[in-house]
């Protein structure tokens, strides 16, 4: 029955290669890399760098979605944490700034997790609360202004480089490895997939499903906080109105492109991040092509549809559709 096993990752890698090839056609210098002032430059680096916030968000989002939840508040959490980081940057050292911002993200995650796991609210409604309120909180922190800073430490976080690799990319890679190690190195991965696959059955098997759900929302909050700090560091300021705006949707999209079902269960961290990169490669390609950015949204929709169709083993041909129809019995 190998045909029922998803060809995991193949569709995503294929999509990425195709988009990269198109980008190469649109912009002949796309694969050029150069080293300048100890930092790599080039379109590819740009894709990775710009893709960092969504990649970080998708790391948290994929776990939330695996438990059959969703977190709409990550964009707002980015704004809150970016605002906190920017406000503290010039008066405190980097450790304090980071601790405060990540702590805030953790609290946001706890709040969401509390609503979903303890009060049993529907995830989409529960996180909508913070999605709306969070931006207000961020505006209160920045007092309605765009808070700028010049702390070289925080600026380095957004614009510096480690061995030529821009710091945001290094952070995202580090977080991918850390999350992977925690989730797959412990039993967390299995128990999250079980919870998302069948929460009732998992509960009866002795799985602490509430603790699982709480944990994934907390982690999602922390990832969003980190994304928020990086986004603020990148522009050396915090804009409560626009930081992370609509990025929750990109993060969800990245997870879905990465093959994790919104109905929970099986998930893949690497493929979610790959999904984020696909989105960013597309964005960058359209910018380079000189088409107006409005096209971005349309092209994105088409590519997403294509990737999803490619992934669906049952839709890989007309025969597949027929099989599907025959199987769809009440």
């Amino acid at each position, binding site marked *: 029955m190998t045909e029922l096993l998803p060809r995991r990752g193949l569709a995503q890698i294929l999509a990425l290669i195709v988009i990269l090839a198109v980008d190469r056609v649109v912009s002949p210098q796309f694969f050029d890399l150069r080293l300048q002032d100890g930092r790599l430059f080039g379109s590819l680096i740009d894709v990775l760098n710009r893709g960092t916030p969504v990649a970080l968000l998708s790391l948290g989002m994929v776990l939330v979605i695996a438990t059959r939840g969703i977190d709409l508040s990550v964009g707002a959490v980015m704004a809150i944490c970016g605002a906190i980081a920017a406000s503290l940057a010039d008066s405190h050292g980097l450790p304090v700034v980071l601790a405060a911002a990540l702590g805030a993200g953790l609290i946001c995650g706890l709040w969401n997790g509390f609503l979903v796991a303890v009060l049993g609210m529907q995830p989409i409604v529960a996180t909508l609360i913070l999605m709306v309120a969070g931006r207000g909180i961020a505006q209160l922190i920045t007092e309605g202004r765009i808070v700028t800073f010049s702390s070289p430490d925080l600026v380095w976080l957004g614009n510096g480089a480690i061995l030529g690799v821009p710091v945001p990319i290094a952070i995202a890679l580090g977080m991918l490895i850390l999350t992977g190690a925690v989730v797959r190195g*412990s*039993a967390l991965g299995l128990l999250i*997939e*079980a919870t998302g696959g069948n929460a009732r*059955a998992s509960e*009866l098997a*002795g799985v602490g499903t509430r603790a699982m759900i709480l944990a994934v929302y907390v982690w999602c909050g922390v990832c969003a906080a980190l994304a928020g700090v990086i986004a603020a560091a990148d522009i050396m300021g915090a804009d409560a109105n626009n930081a992370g705006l609509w990025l929750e949707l990109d993060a969800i999209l990245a997870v879905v492109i990465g093959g994790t079902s919104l109905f929970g269960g*099986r998930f893949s961290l690497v493929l979610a991040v790959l999904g984020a990169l696909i989105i960013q490669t597309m964005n960058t390609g359209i910018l380079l092509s000189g088409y107006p950015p409005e096209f971005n949204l349309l092209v994105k929709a088409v590519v997403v549809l294509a990737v999803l169709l490619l992934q669906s083993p049952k839709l890989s041909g007309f025969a597949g559709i027929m099989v599907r129809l025959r199987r769809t*019995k*009440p």
Partner: protein
Amino acid sequence: MENSLDPAPPLLEVRGISKSFGAVRALQEVDFTLRAGEIHALLGENGAGKSTLIKVVTGVFPRDAGLVRLGDEEVAPRSAKSALQAGIATVYQEVNLLPNLSVAQNLFLDRQPMRFGIVREGEMRRRAKALLTEFGLDIDVAAPLGNYSVAIQHVTAIARAVDLSARVLILDEPTASLDRHEVEILFGIMRQLARRGIGIVFVSHFLDQVYEISDRITVLRNGRLVGERETASLPRLELIRMMLGRELAETTSSRAAASEQKAREVCASFENYGKAGYVAPFNLELRRGEVVGLAGLLGSGRTETARLVFGAERADGGQARVEGASVRLQSPRDGVRHGFGYCPEERKTDGIVAELSVRENIVLALQAKRGLHRPLSRREQDEIARRYVKMLDIRPPDAERPVGLLSGGNQQKVLLARWLATAPRLLVLDEPTRGIDVGAHAEIIRLIRELCDDGLALLVISSELDEIVTYSDRVVVLRDRVHVEELSGEAIDVTNILAAIAADGAAMQEARA
């Protein structure tokens, strides 16, 4: 009809209905006849095919064979809506109306009185009021339906159905969540409708109510028609026999004689354990190497007892002890920690995680018990999966296959493996052989015995009395959520169990007569 002397010609006639879901034959050539003005009880245990029959007749499921005649014409509804148009209305246990709309809106949904394209609220309310008054209900019809009790919601659903000119009214477990007084109201309405010539099909597992309200009874078992009888001339014991039993072979416990004298160590005990409105307080001792069977009709409190014992439901009184030490069972986690395992009746919704592999399903409980920080390595998981796939002969022997693709019997074995891997002291099995083909059936029973011989304590629920008699050392009989009798040793046989299930009701019948 050929018999012109028939006092009441059939209103609804169902002939030779068959329905399969994949390989499972849910209905096989079932006949059913409903006369105008009668209340006809449709009975059978879980999985007997009552719901499937209703859904096939009302067109929710397409039928494989057979015909349905309403009055003189043959009908073949394609959906519940077209059944309704033909005159067959169904009210399900879960009332399928809209709780956020008003009572009046619910009654006239889809057919509101209109003028110039605007709903005439006043007119609608007036008519709603009049309609419900017929049913003896005087309530504010402008209030949302959800504000009212389930009983009133039921009556509203019935009123709507009848007002839509239903000739046949199917009530699926209408009394399950009603209290005694509400049941009386509902029965009053049913009798009134029957007098108006409406044929009513009444599905229930409360036998007292069946005897109180119904004129005739049709019993299904395993998708086949067992028989149709006049209620008045059908003794309760006979009815229960029809619902549960094969021909009553006088099997006695094969284990009882051998094991009776052995004093066994108690591994878990429950004193006055119960929960209000769930199961009356009971005493239960579970011993190593002993199978305790729970017998009783559907809804008698068997599953409820199992869930309390395992910790899936919290007791509100009584004392639980494990190995003599007093314990609190607040959640399945507590049960698992104390070495209990529970294979629920609903394998698909409560048991397996369909998407995950056989291996992952098997290690799930053990991993949950060990905790997050002590993950089983992939090699350990493979080893455990391989051992149990071999030991229980799980087929196909592929531990990486998603468990949802396995047959019911093999899924059941995977669940057994899940608990055996935790080395439990007590295993609770709720209908372990339901929906399993004959071969796997025998295997599961053999496994139950082997596990028991290995020193495990087992609490097993089954509707198959022959089965319970075969493997149980003791049998607890439940009726109406009360543990009414405990049989052991030579006393365990199908006749005694049936007598215990029927006892109270028979007494009541005599008292009434």
